[in-house]
């Protein structure tokens, strides 16, 4: 008999996760701002073609952990990373690995929509292609790739007649899906979402969530969210982070319905955070 009923409903798992083929593997990952470690000793395997959510209270290092996965952390002055991260077998912090190449293969979307204001809708989606022309010469015309990316982001029907308008003319929710399309255009195997719905209204949030749910069929998604219901709705795996430490990492269903760590339990039942 359960003593406390779970506060959050978790849907039945829809995909079988093959844990033998992880997409991202971190080992003893520690991320510093100056001398302070914001992420401490995180070792975890993120599955392929699945959505992994990172949850935890504000300031627990969720975003920092995410930003270590495409080497964005080190763009902040004084920030550095210890430990290793492998993405599909490549050590991204390995010697001779170019952070720019890493970022081209790992898409990222931020908390607030960040369309480039001087570019049209089309140019925004094509921005990542233009920077790495050689890699995309064989994969079709820019227009085709732009259309495909917008289709995948569920934005095509809304913007197909507005491709040459300024990207900032779109609504906030559309701008965010445009940013997802921009990240998808370079066909990354991994996409990182840093609280992508934090600045959106409920309807736009729902659209982005549905989109993330669809994306798992083709890419591996890691999403940071401080909305536990959202994590429960859209993720297959959930990592709970507290004060920079990985407290628990399990299937979303497992973590929300039968947490092993008492700290996880009190967080997911809403006792703190």
């Amino acid at each position, binding site marked *: 008999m359960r003593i406390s009923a779970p506060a959050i409903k978790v849907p039945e798992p829809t995909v079988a996760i093959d844990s033998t083929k992880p997409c991202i593997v971190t080992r003893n990952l520690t991320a510093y701002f100056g001398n302070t470690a914001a992420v401490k000793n995180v070792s975890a395997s993120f599955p392929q073609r699945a959505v992994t959510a990172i949850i935890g209270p504000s300031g627990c290092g969720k975003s920092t952990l995410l930003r270590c996965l*495409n080497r*964005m952390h080190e*763009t902040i002055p004084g920030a550095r990373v210890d430990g290793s991260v492998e993405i599909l077998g490549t050590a991204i912090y390995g010697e001779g690995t170019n952070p*720019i*190449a890493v*970022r*081209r293969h790992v*898409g*990222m979307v*931020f908390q*607030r929509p*960040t369309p*480039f*204001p*001087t*570019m049209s809708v089309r140019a925004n989606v094509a*921005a*990542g292609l233009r*920077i*790495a022309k050689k890699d995309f010469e064989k994969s079709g015309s820019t227009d085709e790739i732009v259309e495909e990316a917008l289709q995948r982001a569920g934005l095509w029907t809304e913007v197909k007649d507005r491709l040459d308008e*300024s990207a*900032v003319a779109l609504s906030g929710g559309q701008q965010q899906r445009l*940013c997802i399309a*921009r*990240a998808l255009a*370079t066909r990354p195997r991994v996409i990182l979402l840093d609280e992508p719905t934090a600045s959106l209204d409920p309807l736009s949030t729902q659209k982005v969530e549905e989109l993330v749910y669809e994306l798992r069929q083709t890419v591996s998604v890691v999403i940071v969210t401080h909305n536990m219901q959202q994590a429960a709705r859209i993720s297959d795996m959930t990592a709970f982070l507290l004060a920079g430490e990985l407290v628990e990492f399990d299937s979303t269903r497992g973590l929300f319905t039968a947490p092993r760590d008492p700290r996880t339990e009190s967080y997911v039942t809403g006792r703190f955070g």
Partner: protein
Amino acid sequence: MRTIRSRHVVSGGMIGLTYLAAILATLPLVLILVHLLAKGASSLSLDFFTRMPKPVGEAGGGMANAIVGTLLLIGIASLIGLPVGIGAGLYLAEKRTTPLAYTVRFLSDVLNGLPSIVIGIFAWEFLVRPIGHFSALAGGVALGAMMIPLVTRTTEEMLLTVPTSLKEAALALGYPKWRTSIAVVLRTALAGIATGALVAVARIAGETAPLLFTAFGNQFWSTAVREPIAALPLQIFAYAISPYDEWHRLAWAGALVLITLVLVISIAARLVTRSRFGAAVD
């Protein structure tokens, strides 16, 4: 205790005073424009723009050489002031906290506050005296030196209005840092930088002091950069202190043309800010 009524009276009075101050702030420009129109418009004709100055005693003539001279001087000044100013502004925005950035920022503020006649003396010392004669080049350099701090600081400020999130978005797409600076940061701030450049041009277009012993003025047609050249402000000055009524009329007309030029550039600067694709700068 004060009543609500007395508070309303005081509030109304204060608002009235701010209205008055706002009107007084624009009054000089309105008065100048009205006065110039009244005095100068009657002397303005096609001749003024296309004819050369006539000798004393002959009626008519224009300031074609001074108008062309002023445009040439603005051109030379912009060739120096814009690249140096925008480049320095980029540096200040990218390397905000280096000792060099602090020094450059401080010195550019000092240069901005320097009396323009001092800049003229500097140009005379380094470009007129060694060469041996006045030249359009020396005048353009003096005006360019005045533009540099203006352009530097507006460029820096405009670049800083570009949100960090945009830079991060570009970096996350795999843009190298230098391309992020050019394709995203500079491009987003471009409208603001263009506005700053136009404001700087408007500011130097009417400068007289730096030209007194550099460009010097010229009664004849000249577009040679190594020779003395006529300029509207210099011509206005020379005509205004002359004893001839005919020249006084032309000086008024010249002043009207000059202020119109400055006004047009300022309005253009406004339009550039507003009409650009991106609204991020507003």
